[in-house]
């Protein structure tokens, strides 16, 4: 399980947009995975299984609780992924990609992440998120239309030209 910690953490960060929540999500996921280790089917991908546990904890426990407490959810503007000290650590291009993905609504964000970052097939994404495959397709199409509207990525922070590909 140790080899999947960083991937679980970044998925937790993508969902919650908060580093401390991401860490808690990883911990809760590990605890749940150990409690349910008997349910893991040998021969299947453990990373997929862990991602689906993290997703379910986020959706049913953490997210639900935060909404109920009236704390709301963190907006992309407040996201800590690239604020302050962390901004310098992230490459300019990478930061642009992450910022654009972070601006998507949660359902599109997680679908994009699982399909394009984790490289899951549509069917696998549907299984992790517990939604029909048609939902995965429409989320990706909607997300891609939004992402397509941005100008091409700039390798320098201040774009001087609007050069096209």
């Amino acid at each position, binding site marked *: 399980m140790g080899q999947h910690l*960083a991937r679980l953490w970044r998925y937790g960060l993508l969902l919650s947009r908060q580093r401390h929540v991401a860490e808690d999500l990883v911990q809760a996921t590990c605890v749940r995975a150990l409690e349910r280790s*008997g349910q893991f089917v040998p021969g299947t991908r453990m990373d997929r299984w862990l991602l689906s546990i993290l997703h379910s904890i986020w959706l049913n426990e953490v997210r639900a609780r935060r909404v109920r407490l009236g704390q709301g959810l963190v907006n992309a503007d407040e996201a800590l992924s690239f604020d302050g000290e962390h901004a310098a650590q992230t490459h300019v291009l990478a930061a642009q990609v992450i910022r654009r993905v972070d601006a998507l609504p949660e359902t599109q964000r997680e679908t994009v992440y699982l399909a394009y970052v984790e490289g899951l097939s549509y069917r696998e994404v549907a299984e992790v998120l517990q939604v029909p495959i048609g939902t995965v397709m429409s989320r990706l199409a909607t997300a891609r239309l939004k992402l397509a509207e941005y100008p091409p990525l700039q390798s320098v922070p201040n774009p001087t030209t609007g050069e096209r590909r």
Partner: protein
Amino acid sequence: MNDHSPPTIPSDEQLVAYLDDQLDAEQRIRIDAAIDEDPTLSLRLQWLARSSLPFQHAYDELGQQAPMERLQAMLDTLPSPARPALSRRWFLAAAAGLVVSSVVADRLFLGWQLSQQKSNWRGLVADYMSLYVPQTLEHLPNDEAAQRAQLRTIDARLGLTLAPAQLALPNLALKRAQILEYDGKPIAQITYLDPVHGPMALCVTRSNNGSRHFAQERRHEMNIVYWADLEHAWMLIGRNSMTDLEDMAKVLRGRLSA
């Protein structure tokens, strides 16, 4: 994806699936043919392809910022998954039984104690801890799952969210977390066993007397470091030196207020 009417124009969903190589051969051929017939479809496909960003690269960079040391340390505190489910359940049941029986005994003791003298909660805890010897704790199983369950009981009564990783202290073994009660007020007692100085405990109760910095006192020849935040009063009690206790208190306070 199951479109059986050839003349229809492919949807954005189908075009995206085409870009993502998620179509079977037959569906691909159909979209290739549609693109050949309709040049605007090719433009649409190019527009959608603008959204193909270096996602993996970006998130690999982000993943390198993961707090791996803390995550790994957290994982190390969890019980091994190799343990058969049956023995795990047995352990939990046994540990729960221990807690129930000791809570009953503790309440009796504290009730009696309260009738004997009017004292603050630290005094009660010190009286109680003075009866502890290493053998009180030695036999307790180091079962992380059971301890987690115990911490959840404390969380529920005291409005905390305690995790074993927050409570871990070097050289000391976390032995048990339990709820005590006097006069209807819950006190959580988290016991450790120090190989040199014997039993030590972190205790907490609700308090709204405001935040208070570390203070020290001695009771029953034990050292106590106590402090408070806005909602809870905390104390660390044991036979360790005052300096050691305060160092540990600082570590714990830092983690518990995070």
